[in-house]
Every structure is written in structure tokens, then in C-alpha cells.
């Protein structure tokens, strides 16, 4: 425990009274960061970590909008490293992706990142080399606005959610390649059928088996190997942030996981969402929100009582949870809710959510509303193909790497996220997000494009439009300042947090003129998500699924913005 404390930055240490100016946070204009090896201890076990300045998570970088920052990153490893400033708008060569922005940082080399800070909000940084990010190489960034902060608060805490495994990420990936269900210990079973605990009848099982799909394949890597961390603390270590009753506490929540999507709640406290991905949104009060990998949410809570509250970050497949505490005094704890029931994938997750209820009823040969019957029926007909190339653009490769093409992908931005359909409290949905500031670019998009998120679950292959990045794919090309409407179609039964570097896109969620700005969007299984993009950052940028293993397996591409006017000076 004491060893652990040594490794954890002051702001993330348990009993943290919160972020105050006297805490040793790193601030600009000159910041030195050193990437190295450390031991990391959690749950009484110690493993090898990649860390920045010897800390996990890495030090908090606190900057102010309008300043210039010079970040000198020294690599003490024997392998290349890099730092990507996730969500920051900067010149492409400072974006930190080896092979796209720059050559990477060689062993014993120092690379100086230097750029003006053009925005405010909550962001984060992480390695874009190897799979160092899965081994501790990530940290938070807070940028204070140049002017008045529209969000009023008395105290703030950063909550870095992450996942830690003592298994090396390369070994995790190798296991998945050989046995894609390796980490899933929540599969449907005969016992679960007989005692009803699986919540799935025989007809439904048969339909899933007929497709060779697992209705419990929600997170590829999960609580069977991961300890879910909050600020580098496992559930037992119980990171505790302090407050005084009545204070408005701003929680800056960052999902810095490699492979984990969380449902976050604080039983007993309502949360008001004020920022998403660092951009202000019209305050939206909720009781639980889903945060996909690489997203950030800022929430305001106002605990009035002199009691402790448990912060729960539950993995969406309910295989484990992160746990922390908000309390008036150190040592106080609140009840930790048990893990909830494992959800099953639904028909919408199969890419059939786009069939309206009318047609669904028409196909439901059994009882109305019986999901199994409705789902099984289309499968029995040749016409409802789960892999019809006609449901994909002409340039999509429909080969081994594509085990499904959504036959009727639905826009699910207004739907409660996976596993939260039936909870008896409020849940944030993407359509609740409305940009506080009006959208700057009001031009209608001049063209639209469609990108399919594709995969083969059995072979653990992932890609865009049926191709892995390693297959020498054509980059995604935009003209400088071009306004394009991009629709992502998820042809898989897993969620994918899709991240575009160097830009914010506007989520087309019905709030015309106030579409929320995001750098990462979670595309629900079998669904489609549309965003409008103004490609205003010349250069080359990464575009990928932020589930690290999916990216490593090929779900990655380069976005080019040309001509280079105004860039690379």
C-alpha cells in the first residue's frame, strides 16, 4: 500500500482533498516527462508497468487555454515510445502517432512537443507505441478556459478509469487470436438454460448458435484478467476523494482503459453532465452514464449529507467493477453495490434494430414481443441475410475478415447503452448531449461517406470496410475545410469507440446547430452513427477503434487532409 502510494501522483492518492494549486501538478510552459519502467502493485500483487515520471496514472498536466506548451518527453525504455495528446487540437506533427505524425521517440532520445493550447476541458494523454498504453502509460490533462468557466464548482477531482492485467497485452492478444472467447467466463450454459439464469430460451440460443455468434461476447477482455482501476487504485485500495457537504464537486471522468467500457454511477447522487470529450454541453442530469474507451465526461455532483458515496465504474459485461469513494473524511466508506446481471446481446445488436416495430411484428411468427421469435424468424429466411454485400458500399471488401454485415442498422443514439435498458433510474443517452455553444460551421455537408466497422469474431480480425490497416488500405481523404457527413455502420455485435485524431466531429443527434462535439464516439453493436466533420486540420491523422486489441488487430486507418496550406511551417 505504501509502495503503491509512492507510485501514484499526489492528485490521485487516496484521501485526496481534490485538485488544488498547491498539489504538485505539472503545469506549463515547460513540462518534462520521462517514460520508463516501474513496478505497479494492486490487490497485493506487483507487476511491470510502463509509466511517465514513475507514476500510474501519469502526472496530471494542467494548462490554460491560450498558453504555449513545451513538453519534453524523454524515453528511458529500450523500445520506442510516444505520447499522443488525446483530444488536443494541434499541428499534426505534434500529435504523437509514430508512422503518421512523426517517427516516434527512440530509446534514450528526447522529443520536444511544442504547440499552442487552443481549447479548454478535460483530456488525456497516452502512448501510441506498441501496447504500452495497456501497461500504465496514460495520464490526465486539464485545461482551464482563458475566460470565465461556464461551469461553477467548489472542488474538483479527476477520475482516471482504467484496466490493469498482470498478463502482458501481447499475450492477451495471442489468447484472443487462438480462442476469442478466452476471457469470457459468462457464456450461456446448459445449467443456465435449465435454471433460467441465462435469461435466454432455447429458440434464441439456437438462433445465436446458427449464426456462430456468442450472445455474451460483450467485452473481449474483462474482469477475469482485469483489475479495474480508478486513479490507479483497485476496488480494495478504494481511492477516496474528499468533499465538504454542500459543495459542488466537479468530477472529470476519463476512460483511459485499453479494452473496458464502463457504466458509471454514484448511488445516492445525481450527476449533472456538463462536458463531453472536453466540450461543454447543456447540463443534463442523470443517474448513470456509459463511458466508452477514450471518452471523457465532466459531471457535477452536490453531496449534501455528511456521508460517504461509492463511485462505481462497472464493466459493461458485469465481469467486474472499479470502485472509489467520495467522502467528507478519509476512512469513510459507503455500501458497494453488487455486480448486476450479465446482459445478453439483443436483436438490435445483430444489426436488425433498423427494422421498425411494424415489420418486426410482421416477421414475428410466434408471440408478439417475443424477442427470440422475432429474431429467429428472419434467420430462417434466405432473404434476411446477415452478410449481404449489397448492404455495404461497393468499395468494401467482403472477405474472411467480415463475418456479418448489418442487415438493418439502426441509429441508436437515443437508446440507452448496452446493459442499461432496464435499470430503474435515469441513464444518459447520446441524444441528451447538446452543445452549449452553437456549432461554428453551419454549411451543409458537401458529400457523405460511409465507413463500415467490420470484424470476424472467431478469428479476432478487425478492420474498416473489411480491410485491416496492414493490408495497405487507401487512406480516408478529405479536402482542407471540406465539410463531410460520415456515417459509421457497425457490422459487428460489439461496441467500438471510434476516435479521430486532430479534430472534433459533430455528432448528428438531432440537435441541429448545437450538435455535440466529440473526438471519440461509441458505435453501439449493429448500429450506425453519423457525424459531420469539418476537416480543418491539414496533415495526416490516425482514425481507429480505441479498443486497443481491435486497433492492433487492424481497425485503424489514416485520415489525410490536403492541401497542406497553413501546416508544417
Amino acid at each position, binding site marked *: 500500500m505504501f509502495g503503491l502510494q509512492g507510485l501514484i501522483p499526489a492528485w490521485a492518492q487516496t484521501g485526496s482533498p481534490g485538485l488544488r494549486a498547491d498539489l504538485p501538478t505539472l503545469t506549463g510552459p515547460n513540462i518534462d516527462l520521462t517514460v520508463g519502467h516501474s513496478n505497479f502493485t494492486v490487490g497485493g500483487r506487483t507487476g511491470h508497468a510502463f509509466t511517465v515520471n514513475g507514476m500510474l496514472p501519469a502526472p496530471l498536466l494542467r494548462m490554460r487555454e491560450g498558453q504555449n506548451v513545451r513538453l519534453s518527453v524523454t524515453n528511458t525504455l529500450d523500445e520506442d515510445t510516444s505520447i499522443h495528446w488525446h483530444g488536443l487540437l494541434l499541428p499534426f506533427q505534434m500529435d504523437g502517432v*509514430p508512422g503518421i505524425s512523426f517517427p516516434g521517440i527512440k530509446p534514450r532520445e528526447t522529443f520536444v512537443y511544442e504547440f499552442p493550447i487552443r481549447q479548454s476541458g478535460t483530456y488525456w494523454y497516452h502512448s501510441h507505441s506498441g501496447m504500452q498504453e495497456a501497461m500504465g502509460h496514460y495520464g490526465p490533462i486539464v485545461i482551464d478556459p482563458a475566460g470565465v468557466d461556464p461551469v461553477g464548482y467548489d472542488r474538483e477531482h479527476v477520475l482516471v478509469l482504467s484496466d490493469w492485467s498482470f498478463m502482458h497485452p501481447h499475450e492477451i492478444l495471442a489468447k484472443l487470436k487462438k480462442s476469442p472467447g478466452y476471457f469470457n467466463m459468462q457464456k450461456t450454459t446448459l445449467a443456465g438454460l435449465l435454471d433460467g439464469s441465462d435469461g435466454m430460451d432455447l429458440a434464441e440460443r439456437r438462433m445465436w448458435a446458427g449464426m456462430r455468434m456468442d450472445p455474451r461476447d460483450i467485452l473481449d477482455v474483462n474482469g477475469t484478467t482485469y483489475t479495474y482501476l480508478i486513479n490507479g487504485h483497485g476496488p480494495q485500495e478504494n481511492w477516496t476523494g474528499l468533499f465538504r457537504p454542500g459543495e459542488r464537486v466537479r468530477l472529470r471522468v476519463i476512460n483511459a482503459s485499453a479494452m473496458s467500457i464502463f457504466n458509471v454511477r454514484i448511488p445516492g447522487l445525481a450527476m449533472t453532465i456538463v462536458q463531453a470529450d472536453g466540450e461543454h454541453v447543456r447540463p443534463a442530469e442523470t443517474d448513470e452514464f456509459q463511458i466508452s474507451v477514450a471518452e471523457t465526461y465532466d459531471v457535477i455532483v452536490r453531496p449534501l449529507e455528511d456521508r460517504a458515496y461509492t463511485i462505481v465504474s462497472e464493466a459493461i459485461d458485469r465481469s467486474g467493477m472499479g470502485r472509489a469513494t467520495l467522502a467528507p473524511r478519509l476512512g469513510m466508506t459507503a455500501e458497494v453495490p453488487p455486480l448486476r446481471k450479465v446482459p445478453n446481446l439483443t436483436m438490435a445488436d445483430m444489426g436488425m434494430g433498423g427494422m421498425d416495430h411494424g415489420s418486426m*411484428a410482421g416477421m414475428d411468427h410466434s408471440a408478439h414481443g417475443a424477442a427470440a421469435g422475432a429474431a429467429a424468424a428472419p434467420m430462417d429466411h434466405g432473404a434476411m441475410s446477415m452478410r449481404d454485400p449489397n448492404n455495404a458500399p461497393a468499395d468494401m471488401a467482403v472477405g474472411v475478415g467480415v463475418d456479418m454485415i448489418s*442487415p438493418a442498422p439502426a441509429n441508436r443514439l437515443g437508446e440507452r447503452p448496452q446493459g442499461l435498458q432496464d435499470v430503474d433510474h435515469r441513464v444518459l443517452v447520446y441524444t441528451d448531449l447538446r452543445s452549449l455553444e452553437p456549432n461554428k460551421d453551419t454549411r451543409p455537408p458537401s458529400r457523405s461517406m*460511409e465507413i463500415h466497422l467490420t470484424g470476424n469474431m472467431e478469428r479476432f480480425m478487425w478492420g474498416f470496410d473489411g480491410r485491416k490497416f496492414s493490408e495497405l488500405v487507401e487512406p480516408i481523404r478529405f479536402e482542407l475545410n471540406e465539410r463531410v457527413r460520415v456515417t459509421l455502420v457497425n457490422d459487428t455485435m460489439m461496441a467500438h469507440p471510434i476516435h479521430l485524431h486532430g479534430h472534433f466531429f459533430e455528432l448528428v443527434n438531432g440537435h441541429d446547430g448545437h450538435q455535440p462535439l466529440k473526438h471519440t464516439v461509441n458505435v453501439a453493436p449493429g448500429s450506425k452513427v453519423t457525424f459531420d466533420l469539418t476537416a480543418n486540420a491539414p496533415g495526416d491523422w490516425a482514425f481507429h477503434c480505441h479498443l486497443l486489441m481491435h486497433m492492433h488487430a487492424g481497425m485503424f486507418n489514416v485520415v489525410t487532409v490536403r492541401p497542406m496550406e497553413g501546416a508544417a511551417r
Partner: protein
Amino acid sequence: MSRALFAAVAVLPLMLAAGSALAQTHGGHAGHGAQAAPACPPQARSRPAPKPKPSAATPRVTPRVATDPHAGHDERGAQAAPAPAAAADPHAGHDMSGMQIAPAADPHAGHSMAPAADPHAGHDMSAMQTPAADPHAGHDMSAMAGGAPNIPTSVDAVGGRMVETPPPAAARAAPAHAADLLFDPAVMAASRKQLLAENGDVRTTAVLIDTLEAGFGDGEEGYSWSAQGWTGGDINRFWWKTEGEGALDGKLHEAEVQALYSRAVAPFWDVQAGVRQAFRPDGDDTTHLTVGVQGVAPYWFEMSAAAFLSTEGDLTARVEAEYDQRITQKWILQPAIEVAMSASDIPELEIGAGLTSVTAGLRLRYEIRKEFAPYVGVEWTRSLGDTADYVQARGLDPDAVRFVVGLKAWL
């Protein structure tokens, strides 16, 4: 059984397996054959009539005449659907051409859907999607789409695969790689190569011991094994297989090793070809050329089928299937069946033409870890036809049952 007839039988399982592999690849076209048929060639597929205002979304829903024989019941919907949509959409006027094509946009058009009791069944969707061909119309539909506008995608395109608008020419302006302007292009090239390798080119090496067991039955106590493994990427792999058996007192009866090139040809299927070498301390060692398929059939049946052609010209084949029934997360019951056949009499191997043997097994394993699972089970083997006569001639029972204890493992 004549040689020719046998050849057909031997190859049949291969064809079946390959057939399902093909179905896997092409089955998707079946439902759309009718839609793809119209005379109107793809390049002639014009965009909807000139748009009266700048269109954001390139028209993705291209008009096609629905020739689907089942389109009949959709027709009613086509007439029924536009009404509410038109009311909701101030721009609906421009989009009526799109509206009319709606039925064909219905992915269920070819579906032998029971005529729904609800006359609007199956049509609401097209009503929602079509107006969205106009980017501005989409927002008007938000109430219907549950808050977020429903932007049409390829699924809504009619008659074959949607062709996207290419990026403007300026998007292709030099340089090919922006970072080459600022860093040594040679260094960047090396870095890009690394990036390619790290985003998709995952190589794996696996060793799978399917069975490693001791058997106890009426005859002698014996041991046997069956293992395989591979090295390679997602598509191309070097694959090896081995199996064999002997007496528990140490005498090896027969062993074989296969070295194969394996290529993924469909999402769930690999085709494998190579050589098999069999070793028989008491008989002839044989060498075969082999070709087969291996993969996962619907309902999670692990399948493999292979044909073997020996240097003597003897053709044999083997088909195997197994299934994992999870009782709990760790207790798994695995039924398995293997059928062997031969095109000809091979007296020196005591094999008769036709089906030579059937083996059915049932193994109950406990996964201490997923990679390490001891099991107990029972296996029944029956020799068939002339092969059974050979067995009987040696004074053995062509029908044998043995109990097995073993280990399934992988790494």
C-alpha cells in the same frame, strides 16, 4: 462399391463442407437476385431527378424499379407510407421520387414475410429512410427515429452496392505523407512499416492437443493422441496435425504427421493442402497428398474433412465433427464423430473399399484453465464392410468400446 461410386462418396463430405463455405460467401446474394436482375445497368443508375437545392448527402438511394416478385404487398405500403412522412417533412415535395422507390429500399422486399396484419407493417421504415436522402429532411424525422435523425446507408440503397462519391481532387494533393515534409522520409518510411505491422499483421503460433488419452476396453489398454497447431497470420498459415495410437505397454501401432498449407477462404473456413506421412512399425509406412477443409459450421460444430491420395494411388477420406456443450463455465461435454472411408481395397493396410469405420466419442472435461482440461469419456468404434472382415479375421471384434481418460490442452 465401385471405385467411381466411392470417389463420389469420398468427395461428398468435402463438397458439402466446401459448399457451406461457399454458401457462407455467396449466400448473401440469394435474396437480392431479383433486385439485381433489372435491366438497368449499374452505371445507368442515375441519381434522383435534379435536386432543387444543394444536397449535402450525395444521393445514396438510387432509384430502381422493383422487380421483386414479392414486392406486391410492399406496394400498398408505398402508397400508405408517404402520407405521414410528407406531412412531417417540409421538403418532402422534392423527395417524392425517392419516396416512390422506397419499397425496393426495403431490405425485406424479397422476404417471404407473412402478410402482416398491420397494413403498414414493413413500410414505416421506408417512409423514415427515404426522406432522409435529403439531408435536411432527416432532422424533421427526429421524432420518429427516437431523437436522432435516421441517415440512410447502403442498406437503403437499391439494386446492388452503393457507390460513394469520391473525395474532391484537391484532397489528393501532395505530399503522400505529411510527416515527410518535416522528418527524414527514410526514417518515416521505416516508421510507417512498423505501423502497418502493428495494426493488423498479427502472427500467432498455436499448439492444440485435442486428445492425449489412455483407453481401457475389451482389448488391450492403449494410448492415443491427436494434436495440431499453426504458425502464421489470419489468412495464410503453416498447419500441422498429428495423431497416433499404441499399447500402454509402450508399443506404437500407428502414427501420422501432416504438414499443410492452410488458407482462410471464408469467415469460418480454411482450406488445407499438404502431405501426410504415416508410420507403422509393423507395416508399411505410407505417404499421402492431402486436401481438406476445416472450420466451424453453423451451430458451432467444429468440422474437418480431408481426402488422402497415397503414393500407391489409394484414395481415402476422413470426416470429423465435434461439439462443445457447456454444462457450466468449466464443465464441458463434447460429443464427437469421425467417419473414415476408402475408395479401394488396401489389403496391406487391412482396409476394405467403402465406409471403413465410424468412431463416436463422448468426453466430459473440466477446464481447470481454458488451456488445460482433463477429461473422462467413452469411445465407440465400429469397423464396417470389408474392413470389419479384416478385423474379424484377426480375431478381434469390429465393434469396440473403450473408456478414456485424458487431457485436452493448448498453448
